[in-house]
């Protein structure tokens, strides 16, 4: 069965439907990661998005339960140059995802790079392209959308109950890899909903602000909680968590033209000049800043990739130290943070 992608600017890309029927609306974005398709599709940060893979072939090595970053897919649709099945396409189908193969993904990427991420509709099957474009245009733009609430856990739960440090994770759309890394580093981990209060969180040895989808700016309540929490418990922010920490400390965030999504982004640690090859997935960023607390910087566009407020024991990174998918270069960031938290607690 054929299908198509319609962008808000009227451009249409045709392909072949390889998973669920129907249609999906969302923001068309691309990721340049060459591996980890299952992890990406199940990463809650991709909520309300249509993911285009630049990797030429997707699905080569099948699927495995342990690879999912959350219990279900969050991306709305998957766009591929060449999908490989049946394991991968069946998996998508069973989960109701719309997916197209045979898309001229490079042309789509070049368009999104030049014009920015766009609202779009993916249709599996025949349909009116004009109508699809109209639906795409009727969507609410990603800027201004608060999406964390929709993907967060509704109630607290314990992920691992033993460890040398007790860590609270605020789930704005948390990936399992973060929890796995924390537990692996020896932390006892409890996960809280996005609207947990500062009092609930401050009882822990450390608080991790997770990744998540959407625009950080409208999350004013979450930012307020973080502001209250500052100085009361050590904080580590990742991705959206980084942006929220930045907002709470007076930095500005803005929407990137087409985002950073991939597993190869160079980030420099300003103090040492060391470069980390990082896993990234964000459509919003903390505006470039020379402030002393800006510890990491993107070597692509200068956006702030890390913050450190030593007095408040709060720090954050824009990239994904937990990987899943992507390089493990920044794994030690999580490990050393747990170490520090445990040490401070013991002292």
């Amino acid at each position: 069965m054929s299908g198509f992608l319609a962008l808000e600017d009227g451009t249409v890309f045709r392909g072949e439907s390889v998973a669920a029927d129907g249609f999906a609306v969302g923001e068309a974005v691309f990721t340049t990661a060459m591996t980890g398709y299952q992890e990406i599709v199940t990463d809650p940060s991709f909520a309300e998005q249509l993911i285009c893979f630049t990797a030429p072939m997707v699905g080569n090595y099948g699927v495995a339960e342990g690879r999912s970053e959350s219990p279900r897919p969050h991306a709305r649709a998957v766009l591929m140059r060449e999908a490989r099945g049946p394991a991968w396409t069946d998996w998508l189908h069973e989960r109701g995802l719309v997916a197209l193969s045979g898309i001229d993904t490079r042309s789509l990427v070049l368009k999104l790079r030049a014009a920015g991420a766009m609202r779009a509709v993916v249709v599996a099957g025949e349909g009116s392209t004009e109508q699809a474009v109209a639906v795409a245009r009727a969507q609410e733009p990603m800027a201004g959308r608060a999406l964390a609430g929709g993907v967060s856990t509704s109630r607290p739960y314990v992920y691992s109950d033993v460890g040398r440090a007790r860590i609270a994770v605020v789930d704005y759309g948390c990936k399992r890899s973060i929890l796995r890394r924390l537990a692996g580093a020896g932390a006892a981990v409890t996960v809280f909903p996005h609207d947990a209060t500062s009092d609930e969180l401050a009882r822990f040895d450390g608080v991790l602000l997770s990744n998540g989808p959407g625009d950080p700016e409208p999350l004013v309540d979450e930012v307020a909680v973080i502001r209250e929490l500052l100085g009361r418990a050590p904080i580590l922010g990742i991705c959206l968590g980084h942006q929220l920490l930045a907002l709470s400390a007076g930095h500005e965030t803005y929407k990137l033209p087409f985002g950073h999504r991939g597993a190869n982004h160079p980030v420099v640690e300003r103090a040492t000049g060391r470069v980390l090859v990082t896993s990234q997935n964000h459509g919003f960023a903390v505006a470039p800043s020379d402030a002393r607390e800006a510890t990491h910087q993107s070597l692509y566009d200068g956006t702030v990739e890390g913050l450190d407020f030593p007095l408040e024991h709060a720090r954050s990174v824009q990239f994904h130290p937990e990987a899943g998918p992507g390089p493990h270069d920044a794994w030690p960031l999580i490990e050393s943070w747990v170490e520090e938290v445990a040490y401070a607690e013991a002292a």
Partner: protein
Amino acid sequence: MPRRHDLESICLIGSGPIVIGQACEFDYAGCQALKVLREDGFRTIVVNSNPATIMTDPGFADRTYLEPLDLEGVADVLARERPDALLSTMGGQTALNLARELATAGVLDELGVELIGAPLDVIARAEDREEFREAVRSVGLKVPSSRIVTSVEELGGISLPAVIRPAFTLGGHGGGFVETLDALRRQVERGLAESPIGQVLVEESVRGWDEFELEVVRDRKDNVVIVCSIENIDPMGVHTGDSVTVAPQMTLSDQAYQELRDAAIAVIRAVGVECGGSNIQFARERDTGELRVIEMNPRVSRSSALASKATGYPIAKVAAKLAVGYTLDEIPNDLTGTTPASFEPTLDYVVVKFPRFAFEKFPGADTTLGTQMKSVGEAMGIGRTFVEAYRKAERSRELENEERWELPASAHPWFHEELAREPGWLDLDAAVADDFLRYKRAGLADGDIGPELVVRAKRRSSGVRPSYRRVDSCAGEVEAASTYYYSTYGEADEAPPTGTNPRVVILGSGPNRIGQGIEFDYCCVHAAQSFRALGYEAVMVNCNPETVSTDYDTSDRLYFEPLRLEEVLAVCERERPDGVAIQFGGQTPLKLARGLEAAGFPIMGTPFDAVDLAEDRERFGALLARLGIRCPQWGIARSSEEAREVAERIGFPVLIRPSYVLGGRAMRVCYSCDDLGDIDRPVLIDRFLESAIEIDVDAVSDGMDTYIGAVMQHVEEAGVHSGDSACVLPAPSLSAAEDAEIREVVRTLAPALGVVGLINVQLALADGTLYVLEANPRASRTVPFASKATGVNLVQAACRVMAGTKLTELGMSEAQSLGHVSVKAAVLPFARFPGADPILGPEMRATGEVMATAADLPTAFAKAERAAGRPLPTKGTAFLSVRDADKHAVVPVAESLAGLGFKLLATSGTSDTLTAAGIAVERVRKVTEQGSGATVVDLIRRGRCNLVINTPHGSGARTDGYLIREAALVARVPCITTLSGAAAAVHAIANARHEESMSLQERIDETRAA
């Protein structure tokens, strides 16, 4: 950290002659390194004995030394130039081994030269098996369990199957896979003999495990990036150089891939490579994920060249900058210009590499693939899917019969599934655009779908044409002005050409093979440079990932495409060139010329008809007759009977060959009717001129005037392929009148053929009479040698002539009083092909060549032999055994050797001749001779001979001669198989002097001043 300011001059060592396992990828690396070092203001000195390299062009370094790559040769240059540093990581294993030797011998310390790129301890940790194993274990990884062995007595308790890996050898040379105790013993003996340090590793076999390679780059701040992952489709057990490989890896999940990535980073740190690139190989058990680190090269490599071409990330360039102090984040990504080199390329296409073999050249040789590399070249294909890339690479090999490669059963099932997807038979009459698209997207050529021209016409009329995509290193994420393209189908075309300058499409020479190698890449690169300098846009088409021509900044646009009519026409349709240059890429572009002309694309310079005129023996014969130029008597025969008639008419011996030959493929010398064999297709029969002097001329003609670039004389007599013969410039045996006659003949012939550009003419001088043997209206294998020996860039002159300039306007003078003698010597791969008889003949078998220059011939000859890895002995024992025809001529050779103090050994016949001539000689037993005492083969094996002179009666394997030659090969004793070669060698032994090395630049200045 910026550039180091404590360094001013840097010496770079090249990799020497092209041999199996070490080809032009190191020219590519060296060129990139020199380019960036010079841009940074360093004074550069390069040492490489290979004249066909671009890196040894006088314009590429401040000082260029075509000197032997041995301790003495490089130490001389270092002492003369006193560089601050030696960069050892660009010249393959040869340079790395030399750097190690220079350091251990104390030369570097004595001269105050710092080893950069890979310091001594790093080389040792990566190359010494024991140290490497320790380094890998120290980071919790595993190498296959193994034992280091220095004698066959230490083999007790080794479990089989096992792999034998000698230390410090090229391409795993001397190694192998063994399953029996007997084989184990034999292979270890061989490995010990091959290893310069007499050490081999006997290790746990991981044959059948999946094989991966990672290209890793690290800087002095400990930043590490993985440039590329490469998956071998042939699992472990086949040398990676002989494997079909794909990038990026296709079958690993993110988790499994990241494990490999982590392991690679841990290994590069443990070994301690601080500023440069490394290739790390892994074996991975498919089901359990069990990992073994197989080996690491702390330098650029064949795989790093492939990775650079596959990703657009120039590893050698980056490694050179790292070696002089920069860090990755300070080096810009060339393709984007706005982002740094401290990232990992991401691919939105697939790259497949195929090896190219030359077994047909070595009858009798074992063709089984194993841990010792046997391929002579490679081709790469790029596509948007695996099969598309795979099929493109497969057909880029340019095999005579387009056979497909059979996927090994042990290959990962994913590859089997992908290839099984191929669409079936297509009903051409009913086919619509979507059908063609489906076939093209599966990577099939028009000729795979049906009759090529029919499919092409129907496909085009249905609107299905290729589109071109950029290789940009970042999958489109960052804007890139890259001019590196590949074709695919069913997508938008990207960045079509817009310039208004005239355009020339230069067709490259495809995968290296015997007879068509780096020399032609040299010519193509020069053509690109020359046309650019003339105001043209130079567009390159080639599919060889090892080369300089496929570096993205050699031309204005690079199309990485198969050199086949379909793909080349498509490029021409996109580029609409003012001309297509076909005379630089060897025989490959000539095969496309007719089709290009038919499609209306103008050939630049010499038209295709000239090629046909020169290659069609009847037309050529008629032309020579009209011009009054002599050629050996000849005839064409279509059957055995006709062959006999022709041969008897012109008289034996005769030379038989098929038309349109490359590298003398299938040429034979026949001495009688019995030798003619069965003839079932047209053959060319020439009178074979015995004991003639063979002459090679390279010239440039503008269609009126002709500039004679070089008149070169072969050392070996006629009958030995020109590519295998040593060659001398200026020709030493020609009288002034003969020289003038040769020049006159070429001056007459070139315009008569219609040559506009380069021409190579082969002539023979027999008993004072000059014959033209053949003319090639294109660049020849000797163009780089001739250009370097004379200091005149022949390709540049050819390009100017092709662009319409007249020779008279170029003001070139034919001064041949060079004041020095240059010798080119061939390097032969016999040691790689046990079972094939190591003799010279009309079939070319050399993989590479070296050049040496000195004030006189013997000195230059001796140096060339040294550079070719066969240093002539100056004392000791010489063994002589020659065929009856040579018995007379061997006497003076033996006399000279005896006069030089050599002890002489000979078998019965030769011994009788020498004794009769009053020369003291010790008679030794042939293998086939009854009797007691050691045979000649025993003596050679025991290292009792320092020189072997053995001229064959024919090449029957298992003859005495064969056994002698094979023993010499294994014992690494110089073995000379022609009497003319022996005479030249003995003359050199007697008269060679020690001479201070001199750079190419100084010689050129000297010649110009003269």
